């Protein structure tokens, strides 16, 4: 399809199309029929993984909301020795703070800048997921089409 567009563009403008910005079709939106909760979370996590900037080459990152009181950060990469590494961090919302639980039984409550960043990330996550996965306004919860 991209080739077809490129040729069409070449026909229209003539000359060198290599200097033109690359032509690509937007990803086809997924059909949102009856999806399971797991599938929805998978779609959310694709967005969540992009919230913290560019994912390093060879890394796979997921960040998602598992349930109202639990958020998960998952990162996977290959180290210099070629060994596949993974790390999972669970953030639990408690009455006395947000507990960060990492592998190796490391626990700590989020504080300072890390807490601020986490809160901001969850807000961004909700804003983007509302629009891009559920197609609803993050403020009102109403379907986006209904507001046009």
């Amino acid at each position, binding site marked *: 399809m991209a080739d077809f567009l490129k040729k069409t563009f070449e026909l229209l403008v003539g000359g060198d199309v290599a200097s033109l910005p690359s032509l690509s079709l937007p990803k086809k939106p997924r059909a949102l029929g009856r999806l399971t*909760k797991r599938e929805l979370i998978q779609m959310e996590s694709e967005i969540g993984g992009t919230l913290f900037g560019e994912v390093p080459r060879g890394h796979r990152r997921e960040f998602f909301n598992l349930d109202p009181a639990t958020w998960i950060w998952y990162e996977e990469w290959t180290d210099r020795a070629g060994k596949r590494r993974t790390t999972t961090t669970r953030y639990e919302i408690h009455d006395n703070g947000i507990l960060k639980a990492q592998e190796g039984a490391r626990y700590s409550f989020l504080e300072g800048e890390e807490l601020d960043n986490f809160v901001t990330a969850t807000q961004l996550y909700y804003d983007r997921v509302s629009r891009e996965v*559920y197609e*609803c306004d993050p403020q009102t919860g109403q379907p986006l089409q209904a507001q046009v």
Partner: protein
Amino acid sequence: MAPLNTGNTISLSPNQFEAAFEAIAHHPDNSDLADLGPEISRGPVSSEAALGEPVKAIDFASKKEAYEDAQRELARQQELARVRNTGDRLEVIRNRKIGK
């Protein structure tokens, strides 16, 4: 005596004030004010004298620290509430999509 125009603000020197007060207090309509003259002309009473005991110095440093602690705790509680609220709202739109 002409009625006072209470809508205007005027500045008086201490002597002018004394004179004005005397004039007002001794007006027949304001006889109950006459007794206040000496008290008022004496000037502000020190808080020590008014309370009958020395006024303790206020520990502003500890008060400021307590205030800042309270502000931090409030901010933390608000952030927690925001995150919890976000989780709840996600659950709602997710369940709506699932059809629960």
